[in-house]
Each structure stands twice: as C-alpha cells, then as structure tokens.
C-alpha cells in the first residue's frame, strides 16, 4: 500500500520523530534512532555545543537523518526567529521546530507568539513545524502563516501522561489538511499507537525514551507501536459496540412477536 508521509515535498520514511534531550549519554542517541527506525530527529539549538569536541550532539547523529533544530528556550517570537536563524547557520538544512514557551511552570506553548514566528520564518524559506496547544483556530492561522505541519501536544512536555487532549487533537486531524504530529506527553508505546490510530501523521517522543531504564529497547517498542497504530488506522477498525452482536435487548421483542405471528 502506498502510505507515505510527505512534509514540505519531502518524503519521510518513519512516522516516529525522536527528541534528543534528557539522555544520560549522547552515544545512546544513534542506537535509539536505529532501534526506532526514526528519520526525523529534533535537537535543541541551546544544547548544540559548537566549541567542544565530543560534546556536539550533531556529531552523534547518523548521516541519513533529517535534523530538525528546535527553538527550546525561546520566550517570544523574536527569540524563536533568532534561534532558527542561528540554527540554519549550522548548515543542517531548513527544517525547524518552533517552540515558544513563556510559561516555565507547565511548559505550555504560546500559540500567539508561535504564529508570528511561523509567518516570518516561512517567508525566509524555513520548513516550519510548530509545537502548539491544540486549538483549531490557532492551527488554522498557523497553516495560513506557512507551517509545514502542525504539532499539537498530547499532554504537557515531559509528563508522560498520554493523549489528554484527545478530543481537541482529533478535531485538528479532521480539519487541518497538513500532517498533524502529536508532540509531547506520550509516555508509553500504547499511547503512541493510540495517536496513530486516531489518524495522526506521526508522533514525536523524547522523555519516554530518554528516561526509560533501557532507552534503546523502549525506542524499538515505540517504533513498533507507531507502525502498528498506523496499520490499524489504515485498516479501518470496526466500530466499537457496547453489546454482543447477537443480542438486541431493547428490540428483541419485535423478533419474538414476529415469530409468534408467523
């Protein structure tokens, strides 16, 4: 079956995107990417160490990945734009994940500032993937501003709580024509599968893998779950029913009466 994820004209081979924060050792990251069969990898520019050999996370990434720098630490559109431009100077390409967070307590994204940043960066030729709070009107404005995909949160970053925003994300999946990628909050492979079954184009996972006892094994499990969830979505699951098929507790009397009448 032809089931390709295409973002800004580029075909992406894996629907599991990986975040690189919180790992105890950078050497784990290439193993995680391999085990997850991931292709898109996001890296916080604030952590990219240009000056220390062995400390530059970019050196640990396999050559065939799509690096998506993120603007972690940006508190405003202006800071996000500045960080995106610095990221572009690394020569890793034009993809950028916009993350504008003006709330350090819950780390919830600032949709308003994010829209402003998308508008500026899209005009400069960036492929912009915004991290956002799942709000349909904000998502539509992001599309108009030139976003290449929409990345709503399932739950606040790092909480591992699952798809708490399910209803709102489902609306985005139904209404937004761009790929909808569930970013943040996914704590278990089953939740990644759930997002994929809902029709998400992809999921982005970091904390759940990085803080697992065995990050490489967890990465593999996430990769399998994303594939399974996508498969289930494509297969079109049967409608769920509350009662066994044979029983008709409310209308069964009709059949009985019909039998009597025969």
């Amino acid at each position, binding site marked *: 079956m032809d089931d390709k994820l295409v973002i800004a004209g580029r075909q992406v081979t894996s629907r599991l995107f990986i975040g690189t924060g919180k790992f105890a050792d950078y050497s784990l990251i290439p193993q995680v990417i391999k085990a997850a069969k991931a292709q898109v990898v996001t890296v916080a520019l604030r952590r990219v160490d240009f000056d220390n050999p062995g400390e530059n996370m970019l050196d640990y*990434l396999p050559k065939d990945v799509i690096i998506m720098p993120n603007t972690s630490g940006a508190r405003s559109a202006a800071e996000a734009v500045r960080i995106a431009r610095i990221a572009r100077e690394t020569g890793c390409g034009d*993809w950028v994940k916009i993350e504008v967070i003006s709330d*350090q307590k819950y780390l919830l994204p600032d949709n308003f500032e994010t829209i402003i940043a998308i508008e500026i960066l899209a005009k400069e030729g960036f492929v912009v993937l915004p991290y956002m709070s799942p709000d349909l009107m904000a998502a539509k404005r992001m599309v108009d501003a030139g976003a290449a995909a929409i990345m709503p949160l399932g739950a606040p970053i790092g909480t591992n709580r699952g798809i708490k925003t399910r209803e709102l994300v489902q609306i985005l999946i139904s209404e937004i024509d761009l790929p909808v990628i569930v970013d943040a909050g996914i704590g278990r492979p089953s939740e990644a599968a759930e997002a994929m079954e809902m029709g998400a184009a992809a999921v982005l996972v970091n904390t759940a893998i990085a803080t697992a006892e065995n990050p490489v094994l967890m990465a593999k499990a996430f990769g399998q779950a994303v594939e399974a969830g996508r498969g289930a979505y494509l297969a079109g699951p049967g409608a769920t029913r509350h009662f066994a098929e044979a029983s008709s507790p409310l209308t069964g009397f009709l059949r009985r009466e019909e039998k009597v009448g025969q």
Partner: protein
Amino acid sequence: MTFYDEIVRLGGMDLAGFLERVTPSHVTNVLAKSDLQSQDFLALLSPQAAPFLEDMAQAAHRLTLQHFGRTILLYTPLYLSNYCVNQCVYCGFNATNTIERRKLTLAEVELEAKAIAETGLQHLLILTGESRQHSPISYIRDCVSVLRRYFSSISIEIYPLSADEYADLIAAGVDGLTIYQEAYEEKVYSLLHPKGPKRDYRFRLEAPERGGQAGIRAINIGPLLGLHEWRSEVFKAGVHAAYLQNRFPDIEISVSFPRMRPQFGDYRPGFPVSDRDLVQSILALRLFLPRAGITISTRERKELRDNLVKLGVTKMSAGSSTAIGGHTDARDSIGQFEISDRRSVDEMRRGIAHLGYKPILKDWHDLGREGKKVCQTTPIS
C-alpha cells in the same frame, strides 16, 4: 505588591507552631499529593518529615528525572574583584578584613576566560564584592563584552542593581542573575550586615524582581544556611522561588542551598546545618517546585555531591576558585570562602558520567552570537 509584602505576611505567621503541630499522617498525605501548596512544603521541612526522607527521595528522583532527564549542568564562578564596602560578619571579603584587594584588568579577565573555556565550560557566573567605586556597572559591562566571546551564558552574582542597571547588563550579554538573600529573617539580616549598602534588606530582597522586570532569562536565589534556623529560611526561600515563578512565568527559576564554609575571619555559624538537614531541604523543594533548578556548589564535598545528583540537583559548579584570578594564578591568594570539592572540570565530567548522568556544558545560546557551520550531515531541502 512585591515579595517584601509576602515576607511581612509570613512574619505574622506562627511557623514554629505549625512545624510543631505537623503529624506523620499529615506528611503521608502531602507525599500522596501531586500539587503542593506552601503549607505542604513547610510540613515536609518539619522534624516529623525526617523519617520519610527515603520516600521523599524516591519521589524527588522521579520528578527530577521526568523534568530534567539524567543531566547536570556545569558552570564555574569567576571572581572579578574583591573590593567591598560591606561588613557582612560571615564573609571573607568583609571591608574590615585586611586581605589583599584586587580587581582583574580586562587583559586578566581574558586570560581567565581562556583558561576556563579550555575546560569546555560554557556557563559562567561572574562575581564581585560591592564597590561601586572599584567595580561599577561600566566595569562589569566591559568584562562581559570580553567574556561573551568565550561563553554562551553569563550570569552575575554582584551587588543588587536597579531595573535599569539590570537592563543595561542584559543588553551587554548577561542572561542570568544569582542573588542570595543570605538571611530571610529581617532582624537576623540586620545583625549580620552592620554597615554598608547591603544593610538595605528590602532592596536586596526585591532585586530578583527588578531583574525579572528588566527581562533576565534565569534567576537563582537562596538563603545562606548556617546564619539562622534552617527550616524557616528554606521555607521562605522556596516561597520566594514560587512567587517569582508565578510573577515571571517565562523566567527559569533556580534555588541554591549554600552552607556556610570556613572563611577568613572569626565568624562561626550559629545554626549549623547537617547533611541530613540539607538533603531534607533539597527534597522538600523539589517536591514543592518540580520544575525549579536546584544548584549545589563546590562548597560541598565530593561524596555528598555525588549522592545529591540523584536527589533533585540540576546544576553544579566545577573547577571553582573563589579567589581573584584563581583560574590562572597559582598564588595562594585568599578566597571568599574555602572550596570543598576540588575536582577539576574534567574530573567532574567523568565523575558525573560515571554516575549515569550527562554533564551538560551548554544549555543556552547567547542570541547575540552567530551559529557555526558544524553540520556533518547532507543538507536537505
């Protein structure tokens, strides 16, 4: 309203009475909660919470792992000047102490910067004594413009400034503000600071807010433990951090718990804080403020710092010297206080990695600096 009003309000409360009335079941209830209020935090600082230290540690470890991962940010202090007009009774730089007074020239600042940058550190904390004559804002600004070429994040730990002065230094490249209230109990504060501008308790207490108004990225506060009863001091510092988090939601707030160390002079702390007390403070703060940074300096010895890595700490100093020119000058000049963990940056990096954590050398990119072409992958698009 400022945090001073909050301190006045707390001053009217019977904290000691509350601490006495805490029961073990109260502590158990707090440990079962996911969102702690300030009175819950105080309960965790009570003597009755001490038997629950392991439970607190398990919860603090989980929360820290969730929010920060297995990472420890490393930084080092750079002392620019030890001229000081204050007479803090506990400080080696006390104006009445007859120690050699020095301030670094800009050329010396650059030598220190090179020596520190060679260790790989990217986060720097610059310090001065309080002397607007010897280390005015203009001097600090000049130092920052030199240091900015070597470091991706520069924080200041200097005398309290006005909001405009903070804005001036932020424009020069400063992104972090560290300022310790030393003693939150105002009467105790007055006794400890008999002379000099530091006598102004309120101007110091409100300094983090002025930094916040000026647009600083990160603020680090704390009490100096040993000067007064630790439970109330830690409580007020935690409430101060929560106040700053609420008032400035976009600023990264951290708390330090520096304990008094031997220094030049005769002062000995009247309220010693044991390792157990320090651990209880760190754990209670982590449970109260899951996202706050917690900083531990080289004041503490290696063995304790190693154990604290898993209990909620997120930042550590490394390769520290508290003497002027201490990163390049082998002379045995007198520092502000004695260092306890004397490991080099390299030893610290290996030590943290050995504990299963990643030592982070860079966690912010100075937005005034350009990027570098470093990407080895094939550019796409």
